[in-house]
């Protein structure tokens, strides 16, 4: 326990540096330091489609297509990471908010002929409204909060499925118009995959930048404070319940945004896309990527989206594989379950935090949970 605490304390010390200079120079330094990570991500995203195209075929993975999904999931995962990693409030129901976003935009564009961009904006607003509606569950803590948000996810799913007059029930909604902006046909462009890819990632990168600003601000400190001691934060003048609601609604808004985009990228949706399984995948992205880390959300979204594609492509690489490996969807849950359990046991801070610790303190990113401690 002691040792682990020491490590995490070192990390806090490192994180606190470089935030203290004021003035223009300070701001420039501050931005440059952060931009090392951010700009390299921007550069990677910008050139990716060019080298990905020739690579996709031999790999058997349509890289650009998958990266679109990674971008969409990144948007949700960032919001969920702020909620879970920074503010310490678990949600097992975010798949449903993603679904609400998707359905809002789909219904408005298909039935009311809204342009897709307006549909997506409406998706965000509706997700915000539902976020406020559900916010009372934030009074609960720990296991109770987890179960209550799971319940919220189930209830919303049942309503999506049963309100057939609005949502089309199990048949879902088909022929959702592709992405477009005023004067720009994104989803019907000649190389529509690439156009969608850039559209999604521009939004995702903006979200990442804004969120990384947010967590370093007074609001970010308030979140981290209430995570560590609600009573102390409250007594220090932080309106804990309101701060929790704000961060929760932020995360549902981002889920709605991602869901709205998702609907137009997919072209069809049905309720079974937005079950508890999706919620758990989103949580997996957050915890595997790295809690309390904005970039962890990108890593988690990337990893969790790519693993199935890689496993599906394996037969192509290896030539011959056992029969049961062929149909990945059968044992997908085993892979995810194992990833979750092993991450929790051996790398509870997630990949980005584990790796950055390894680089920074030259220690193993793994913890040894079986080691006996003096005071048991």
């Amino acid at each position: 326990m002691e040792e682990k605490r020491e490590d995490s304390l070192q990390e806090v010390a490192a994180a606190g540096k470089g935030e203290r200079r004021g003035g223009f120079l300070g701001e420039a330094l501050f931005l440059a330091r952060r931009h090392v990570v951010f700009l390299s991500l921007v550069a990677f995203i910008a050139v990716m489609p060019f080298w990905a195209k020739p690579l996709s075929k031999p790999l058997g993975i349509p890289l650009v297509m998958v990266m679109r999904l990674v971008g969409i999931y990144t948007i949700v995962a960032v919001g969920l990471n702020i909620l879970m990693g920074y503010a310490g409030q678990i949600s097992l129901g975010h798949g449903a908010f993603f679904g609400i976003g998707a359905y809002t935009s789909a219904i408005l564009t298909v039935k009311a002929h809204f342009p897709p961009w307006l549909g997506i904006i409406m998706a965000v607003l509706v997700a915000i409204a539902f976020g406020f509606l559900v916010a009372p569950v934030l009074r609960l803590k720990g296991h109770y909060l987890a179960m209550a948000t799971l319940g919220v996810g189930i209830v919303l799913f049942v309503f999506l499925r049963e309100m057939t007059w609005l949502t089309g029930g199990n048949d879902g909604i088909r022929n959702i118009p592709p992405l477009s902006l005023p004067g720009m046909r994104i989803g019907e462009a000649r190389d529509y995959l690439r156009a969608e890819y850039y559209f999604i990632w521009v939004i995702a990168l903006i979200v990442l930048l804004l969120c990384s600003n947010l967590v370093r601000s007074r609001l970010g400190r308030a979140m981290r404070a209430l995570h560590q001691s609600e009573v102390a934060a409250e007594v220090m003048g932080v309106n804990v319940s309101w701060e929790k609601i704000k961060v929760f609604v932020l995360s549902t808004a981002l889920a709605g945004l991602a869901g709205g985009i998702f609907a137009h990228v997919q072209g069809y949706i049905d309720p079974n896309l937005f079950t508890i399984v999706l919620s758990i995948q989103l949580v997996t992205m957050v915890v595997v990527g790295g809690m309390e880390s904005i970039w962890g959300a990108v890593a988690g979204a990337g990893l969790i989206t790519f693993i199935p594609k890689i496993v599906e492509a394996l037969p192509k690489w290896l030539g011959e594989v056992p029969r049961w490996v062929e149909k990945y969807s059968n044992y997908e849950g085993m892979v995810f379950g194992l990833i979750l359990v092993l991450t929790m046991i051996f790398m509870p801070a997630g990949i980005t935090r584990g790796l950055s610790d390894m680089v920074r303190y030259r220690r193993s990113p793994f913890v040894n949970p079986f080691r006996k401690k003096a005071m048991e």
Partner: protein
Amino acid sequence: MNVARTAGGTEGGAPGFAPGEHLLAAESLTKTFGGLAAVKNVSFMVRKEAIKAIIGPNGAGKTTLYDLLTGIYEPDEGSVIFEEKSLLGLPPHRICAMGVARTFQTVRIFSQMTVQENVMVGLHKSTSSGMVGCSLRLPRARREEAWIAEEATRYLDLVGLEMQADSPAGSLPYGQQRLLEMARALATRPKLLLLDEPASGLNAYETRELGELIYRIRDMGITVLLVEHDMGLVMRISEEVLVLDYGEVIAEGTPEEVRNDPRVIEAYLGSELE
């Protein structure tokens, strides 16, 4: 309008409560946990810019009293008037905004944040940039952020932790964690500061320093209420002492009066006051 409300408040206030002179008046506070009275019918007043100590054996209800004053618990009965306004039923963050800050008996610093960030949380309520301002780093938010950092450094200077500003709060030794809690509480710019056993875990030298610090805080115009077991410190710095035993007030007066009160001596078995 303002005058009228003040006048009304005075008439309706606790008997013997003179505005302008007293900052806080607690009237017959009672709090029961599962049939056991932790605080029973406690009334007292705190003069402006005074240092008042609350002493009593363990389990006398001192911390519960603090919890009642800061809104963590709501009293079963009684009233708390702070600057002529009632604190009853207000959530802790509102009470903090009105100018009551506290430290905790078992320190509750944010151990995963740096020392400076801890103090910065105390400044949260004095700033107001919202989600939009903070995420876009609008000029106002940046100015506020710079101001917060500057102010936080000032309070760290005050308690002598400026050198550790970037250390993780959890890595500080216990005594310094208590100082950090005081800095954090001061950062909320209180009118009344409730200290809960600030000297525990300090050596004799550090305790003397703490006494000086409390004087300095009082000289900033902050009224100090002090729960403390270190009788030397209490008798030296406080102007008034309130003695609790089994949740009830058994004595109140100057340190001299309290020291000679037979009920107090009995409660302490005559041992600790010597």
